[in-house]
């Protein structure tokens, strides 16, 4: 899937017989064919938009508008759709392949905005091309229209984003807010579990006796081993180590003595799996988010206790699904006190095809402070708040 090349396909719906009857009735009142055609198309545009908004739960009242007043309809090229409690929309019809939409001067005022509705040649289907709040001339360019989501925002209540803070210290006590799950339950197979040397390691569930398997893995934690080997060994111990004193001791020793931040994270998270209540135990939880149509990501938060009562925080987003690539321009930001502290954006190649499968930010906020994580793509954003 190449996100950049994927065009937004506007919604099409068939025009109802009932609407065509109404439009014909209005058109039949007109003194000439040109005016009749105009009234016919305007009426279809208003009724189709009305139905669509009603489907979304937006109450409309076409009868209260100028398009339902026969006298006004003669003297103005009007397609007014009153939205209950908000004001009026103007629903302008265009033909297939028209690149601009005509907005008569007399309807350029006192409107919440303009919906551009394409009627097919037989007036049997409508396509909602888009929305704009202002019309400063008699012509609106189709390719500059915004999506209907903008219209929805204009005529809906805006509820504040849920500002319930996730208390990360509670996470360390295994009290995790609803909606956050273990990464393993959301993501299989676990990419962190990289088989190291021999099938016994890769297959053993932690409940069986792993004594024979553990000893060689423990040796891989020694300082003379390559750092990547030590890190993998720490990861494996998280799976097979059980609550054994020698494993706990080895992981704590690794946390205390490694120079490598990555290894320390891995050791702390493994410790968290084996002995969740250990003071150095880390924790990792994830949430699946649908950032746009067919664009699902995993939002992962990992924590590691640090010195002076502070928490290391690791924020990661990972692409999931059949093509695990993050859409280009997807942005991950961390905010504190309303100010963006750190941000990272998914990249694309020369063809605009996404190339990143994951993004991460690590930081250590002052104890007791709150921060927000914002995930943004195009006009969608998800904000989650945390207390460190």
């Amino acid at each position, binding site marked *: 899937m190449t996100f950049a090349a994927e065009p937004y*396909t506007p*919604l*099409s*719906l*068939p*025009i*109802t*017989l*009932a609407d065509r*009857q*109404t439009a*014909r*009735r*209005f058109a*039949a*009142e*007109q*003194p*000439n064919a*040109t*005016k009749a055609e105009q009234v016919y198309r305007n009426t279809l545009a208003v009724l189709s938009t009305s*139905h669509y908004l*009603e*489907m*979304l*739960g*937006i109450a409309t009242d076409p*009868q209260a508008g*100028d398009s*339902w*007043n*026969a*006298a*006004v309809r*003669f*003297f*103005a090229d009007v397609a007014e759709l009153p939205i209950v409690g908000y004001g009026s929309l103007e629903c302008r019809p265009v033909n297939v392949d028209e690149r601009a939409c005509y907005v*008569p*001067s*007399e*309807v*350029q*005022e*006192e409107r919440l905005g303009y919906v551009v509705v394409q009627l097919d040649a037989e007036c*049997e*289907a409508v396509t909602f091309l888009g929305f704009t709040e202002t019309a400063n001339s008699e012509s609106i360019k189709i390719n500059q229209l915004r999506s*209907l*989501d903008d219209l*929805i*925002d204009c005529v*809906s*209540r*805006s*509820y504040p984003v849920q500002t319930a803070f996730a208390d990360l210290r509670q996470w360390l006590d295994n009290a995790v807010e609803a909606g956050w799950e273990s990464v393993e339950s959301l993501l299989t197979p676990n990419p962190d579990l990289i088989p190291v040397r021999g099938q016994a390691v890769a297959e053993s569930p932690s409940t069986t006796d792993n004594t024979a398997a553990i000893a060689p893995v423990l040796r891989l934690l020694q300082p003379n081993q390559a750092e990547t080997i030590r890190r993998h060994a720490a990861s494996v111990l998280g799976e097979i180590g059980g609550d054994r004193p020698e494993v706990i001791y080895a992981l704590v020793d690794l946390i205390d003595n490694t120079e490598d931040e990555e290894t320390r994270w891995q050791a702390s998270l493994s410790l968290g799996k084996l002995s969740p209540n250990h003071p150095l135990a880390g924790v990792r939880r994830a949430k699946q988010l*649908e950032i746009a*149509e*067919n664009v*699902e990501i995993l939002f992962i938060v990992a924590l590691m206790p640090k010195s002076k009562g502070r928490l290391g925080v690791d924020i990661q987003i990972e692409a999931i*699904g*059949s093509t695990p690539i993050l859409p280009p321009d997807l942005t991950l930001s961390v905010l504190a006190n309303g100010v963006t502290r750190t941000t990272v954006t998914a990249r694309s190649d020369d063809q605009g095809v996404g190339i990143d499968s994951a993004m991460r930010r690590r930081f250590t906020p002052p104890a007791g402070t709150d921060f927000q994580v914002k995930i943004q793509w195009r006009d969608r954003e998800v904000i989650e708040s945390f207390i460190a």
Partner: protein
Amino acid sequence: MPSTDDFHQSIGRLVAQILTYPPDSAQRRRLLNQLVRRVMQSGKLWKEYKPYYGDALQQMWEYCLTHLEEYDPSRASVTTWLNYYLKKRLRYFRDRSYRELKRRATPYTTSENKDLDPLDRVSAPEDIEPVIDIWQKTLKWVETDPDGILRATCFRKRPEINAQTLFLKRFPSETPWKEIAADFDLDEAETKDLPKFYNRKCLPLLRNFGSSQGYINS
């Protein structure tokens, strides 16, 4: 391309997500908008080439989207649930058109083999007389201006540019605003203001006339 299972799961999750937001929230409506687009574009809705298909579809969507909480994910996929209501509406329209056909004589279908839409013939427009009456009466009111209110509504101390003259330039033939402005020798700012004047001061007079005459459609 995502598989069918992926599609059903993803749509199911979308519905679950929609139900977490209040009905008048922008969040819920944006997701509903997404749901309609995705389902319509998936091609997974039941299709029948009947003239009333659009009516049935519209009624199905309006009912289902405003009763989403009735959807039971343990019983069927979202599209199966939607199709159940769609077929129900289609049955209703089919039965109705049979009844209409039975009630009426059927010269239409015998004289022409084309599959004519029975509903198209149900309500012939009201008598043509009163229909023409509306625009003639309205035009007469504009021309005579019995209360003098149209002529008294003028543009910027220019008595010759008033609601009556403007109405007559816009109907029955729609003289473009630029042409009207040129006729009256207006400068650029005035040219811009003239349609606003028409909208703010003139159309309300017509609106009142239309209401007083009962020219509001139902």
